[in-house]
């Protein structure tokens, strides 16, 4: 009992904790996944927006080039004479070189019949394969996504929109830092419109120096005009589009995440630009993998963006929260359990004190009671026969004193049983004789209740048993009969013995004709301090330990005490107890055999 309480309490603490921990961990893991998913979505959209920016840049360049090509064509009346083109190249910051192929695929610029400058020579050398295959410039390639606001206007035929578009493009060209040229705005809008419908496209093309970006378009005469970008300038412009890193120790770019870094990797796999956190030095993550990689759209298709991040700090706080919650719960539950345990043990102590007190009192009562009985008997013998009244009074005193001493004996042996278990002292004797003695003792008491004992003894074999235990059991059973079955007239006691393989069992059945025991209560009768139904116990005094004690004793004697369920016929009511005792004929061991621990009260 004492060890069990802390165990139960521990389970009470552990179970909810474990449950909560389990669900908490599950929840956290889910959260983590959700957060990771959200983060990756966020990152993807961020990277895509960068890609979109680049696309817009290319779209602006494209517009710019379409305009410039048209103005070149107009200026030179379709001849693309060398000086004009050179002049254009020398003024344009974004263009490295221009080429013009005639309808038949012949190179018109850089000129074939005039001396070339160094740059042009290099360019011709670099692009000889490309320019020798003019069929490359017939298939239009998908345009880079234009800026959202311009998208609708570019392809619509309405005149208003075109004017707006022209304005936009001129502002765009300023924004992008292209060489300012007033001739663009003078250009008729129809030229521009038609230029957009003619085949054009971007070619990303590998040459010695890396990826060359070329925009080409067909002019109205069928010539192919190509613009090769100044790659350094292109990268510089892209870098300008991208954010710079925040200055350490100041919150200039507060909206930027602190622990992430985005890198722009070029076609050769080299880092072209990076921005983001200050802490993540490049040497720190030589083998670190990017959280996400996005390949850019055409014409920068071989470039990609890498997103690096230091970690997921938000989730650590989640784990911390869970841990704190569990800790708090554990502390709360432990405190509660401790308080409960303290209360419980205090109650136990008080109960024990009470039991001790009762034992003490019972013990103190025993000696004077013995004296009372002794002197009563002595007086009974001294008193002459004719003093009938006095004799009768003495008889009452004697029987009451005997009852009292039985009561005390019950209490003492109950507490002894609880304390140290029952010890059985086997002695040789005859069971029937012992029963007779008890019957004799009870006869006057039962007679006064108008009860008559009918004893049929068949257990006359000499055997070993504890007569004191047997007496106590019978005392208890009979005094129950006296208390509860007083209107039954008879109490039947029968005894027999049965021998089975080297051992002898004695059986004693005690039946009364009182109100009987309901089947559902038959087990609970034996629980200590349980006293049958109210109807039954009404007006009857008792401690409620009798039957339980009797059974414990019987079990200690390697036997049992049970309530026999007789067939519920209406006319024959009453309770019938069957006592079984192990009564060996000869003791195999000299000492008392069995000392059963009887600390299972509800068994």
């Amino acid at each position, binding site marked *: 009992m004492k060890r069990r309480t802390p165990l139960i309490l521990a389970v009470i603490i552990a179970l909810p904790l474990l449950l909560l921990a389990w669900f908490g961990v599950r929840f956290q893991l889910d959260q983590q996944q959700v957060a990771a998913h959200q983060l990756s979505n966020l990152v993807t959209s961020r990277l895509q927006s960068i890609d979109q920016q680049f696309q817009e840049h290319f779209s602006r360049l494209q517009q710019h080039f379409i305009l410039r090509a048209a103005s070149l064509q107009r200026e030179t009346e379709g001849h693309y004479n060398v000086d004009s083109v050179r002049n254009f190249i*020398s003024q344009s910051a974004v263009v490295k070189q221009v080429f013009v192929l005639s309808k038949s695929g012949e190179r018109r610029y850089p000129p074939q019949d005039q001396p070339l400058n*160094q740059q042009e020579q290099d360019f011709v050398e670099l692009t000889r394969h490309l320019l020798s295959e003019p069929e490359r410039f017939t298939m239009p390639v998908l345009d880079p996504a234009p800026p959202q606001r311009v998208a609708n206007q570019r392809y619509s035929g309405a005149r208003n929109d075109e004017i707006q578009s022209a304005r936009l493009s001129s502002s765009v060209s300023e924004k992008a830092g292209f060489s300012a040229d007033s001739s663009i705005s003078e250009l008729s809008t129809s030229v521009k419109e038609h230029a957009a419908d003619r085949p054009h496209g971007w070619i990303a093309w590998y040459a010695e120096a890396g990826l060359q970006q070329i925009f080409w378009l067909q002019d109205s005469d069928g010539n192919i005009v190509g613009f090769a970008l100044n790659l350094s300038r292109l990268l510089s412009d892209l870098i300008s589009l991208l954010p710079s890193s925040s200055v350490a*120790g100041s919150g200039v770019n507060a909206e930027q995440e602190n622990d992430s870094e985005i890198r722009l990797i070029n076609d050769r796999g080299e880092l072209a630009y990076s921005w983001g956190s200050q802490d993540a030095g490049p040497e720190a993550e030589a083998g670190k993998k990017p959280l996400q990689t996005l390949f850019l759209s055409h014409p920068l298709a071989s470039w990609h963006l890498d997103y690096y991040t230091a970690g997921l700090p938000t989730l650590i706080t989640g784990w911390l929260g869970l841990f704190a919650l569990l800790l708090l719960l554990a502390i709360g539950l432990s405190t509660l359990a401790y308080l409960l345990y303290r209360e419980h043990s205090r109650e136990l102590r008080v109960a024990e004190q009470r039991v001790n007190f009762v034992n003490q009192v019972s013990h103190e009562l025993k000696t004077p009671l013995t004296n009372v009985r002794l002197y009563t008997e002595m007086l009974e013998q001294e008193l002459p026969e004719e003093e009938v009244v006095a004799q009768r009074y003495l008889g009452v005193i004697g029987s009451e004193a005997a009852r009292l001493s039985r009561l005390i004996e019950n209490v003492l042996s109950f507490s002894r049983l609880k304390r140290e278990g029952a010890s059985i002292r086997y002695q040789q004797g005859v069971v029937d004789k012992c029963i007779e003695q008890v019957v004799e003792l009870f006869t006057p008491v039962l007679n006064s209740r108008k009860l008559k004992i009918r004893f049929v003894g068949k257990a006359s074999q000499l055997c070993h048993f504890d007569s004191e235990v047997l007496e106590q059991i019978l005392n208890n059973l009979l005094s129950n009969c006296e208390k509860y079955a007083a209107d039954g007239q008879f109490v039947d006691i029968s005894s027999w013995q049965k021998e089975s393989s080297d051992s002898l069992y004695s059986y004693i059945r005690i039946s009364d004709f009182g109100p009987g025991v309901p089947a559902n209560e038959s087990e609970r009768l034996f629980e200590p301090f349980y006293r049958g139904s109210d109807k039954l116990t009404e007006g009857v005094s008792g401690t409620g330990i009798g039957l339980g004690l009797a059974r414990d004793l019987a079990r200690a004697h390697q036997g049992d005490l049970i309530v026999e369920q007789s067939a519920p016929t209406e006319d024959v009511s009453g309770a019938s107890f069957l006592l079984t005792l192990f009564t060996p004929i000869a003791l195999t061991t000299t000492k008392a055999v069995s000392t059963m621990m009887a600390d299972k009260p509800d068994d």
Partner: protein
Amino acid sequence: MNTQIEKPMIRRIVRAFGFVLLSQLPILAQANQVNLNINLATPVMEAEQSHRAFIKVSLEGFKQQDKQARIPANVAIVLDKSGSMGGDKIKYAREAAIMAIERLDERDIVSVVSYDSKVQVVVPATQVRNHQAIYNAIRNIHANGNTALFAGVSKGANELRKFLSRNKVNRVILMSDGLANVGPQSASELGELGASLAKEGISVTTIGLGLGYNEDLMTRLAGFSDGNHAFVENAEDLASVFQYEFGDVLSVVAQGVNIEIRCRNGVKPIRLLGRESQIIGNRVTTRLNQLYSQQEKFVILEVEVPEQQAETELELVAVNVSYDNLFTQHQESLSGQSVARFSRSKQEVKAARNDKAFEDAVEQVANEFSRNAIEARDSGDLEGAKKILQDSASYLGSQAESLSSPRLQEQKVEALKDADALETEQDWNKQRKELKARQYKRATQQTY
């Protein structure tokens, strides 16, 4: 009779008046116009012989009328704050930048960009109103990390673009002490960027600090955009270099100078000394980003002149110059030509020699030798490099004597010293940087 006397009188008076007017014209013009001078080093050449001739095309910025009327500047200071800048270096760099900005006022735009592995815009392009706030931001720069030079220049240029205007002096001042190791890092890529920026009217001045930077890259970047270049060995000297640089920036009078030289009459261009140029057929073009007040910038064109008859004159080249005058805010153009005379008399040839132009030409030729020497040394040909410099020195020596020029004499001594310096292995890094910076200054007539 009366009338007969008066007619020549009037003619004389008118002529005299016209002369006075004409002689005043250049002075008047000089007040707000760039001066174009085309000088042939040998205006008279021996006849019946083909020649190599030097033509000096020089431009001189006019004088700024007064300090108040100067051209507003739009300057981006790009500071290297990579790990190697740690300690005193970054401190001096910060102070140099601050002292330089002290010279600016409300008319000017300044931005400060710092870079290591990444780029930080320390001061976005802003009018110089609140000096203290700018200084505080600059003082926040601390050294750390790698060298993303390309991105730094890109961002600096981007800051300039916010207020980019033809009427301002648009300049990126790049200070670096290390090799570019994040992003593009080759001299050619940076040169390409410089060329592109120059087309927008942005020039990049590069200041190399210490012995760790790539002088080829820095001079290429400066050269293509016609900025200045300086080698600063000790960080203490940064402040004075910044002061010179800002002095230059604040004295710009003309920008976007295009020089076009067309060779006539079978004259063949051979090379343009000193500056990047395009030679297509008989047409030579080059570009200066700006002209400073009262500073002479020139180019030397070497041409081959075919045989001519004696006592004839021949137009060698026609020069066209166009530029943006920052005071009148107009595009203006100048033109001129160079005519040579041919004679049999050696004395006449000698007497006619333009010593100043010839001196400048010799200086540039020797400078070209010096460049070749570095190339030879880089390719491992130590002896060849030494030989080139020694040849250069003897060439300088003989020319110095015939021209009795102390300047060339000095250059000769320099060349001999450089020839010795080629051999010192451990000091070569520093020597090379010094040499590169000196060559650059000579070629671009940089004042500091």
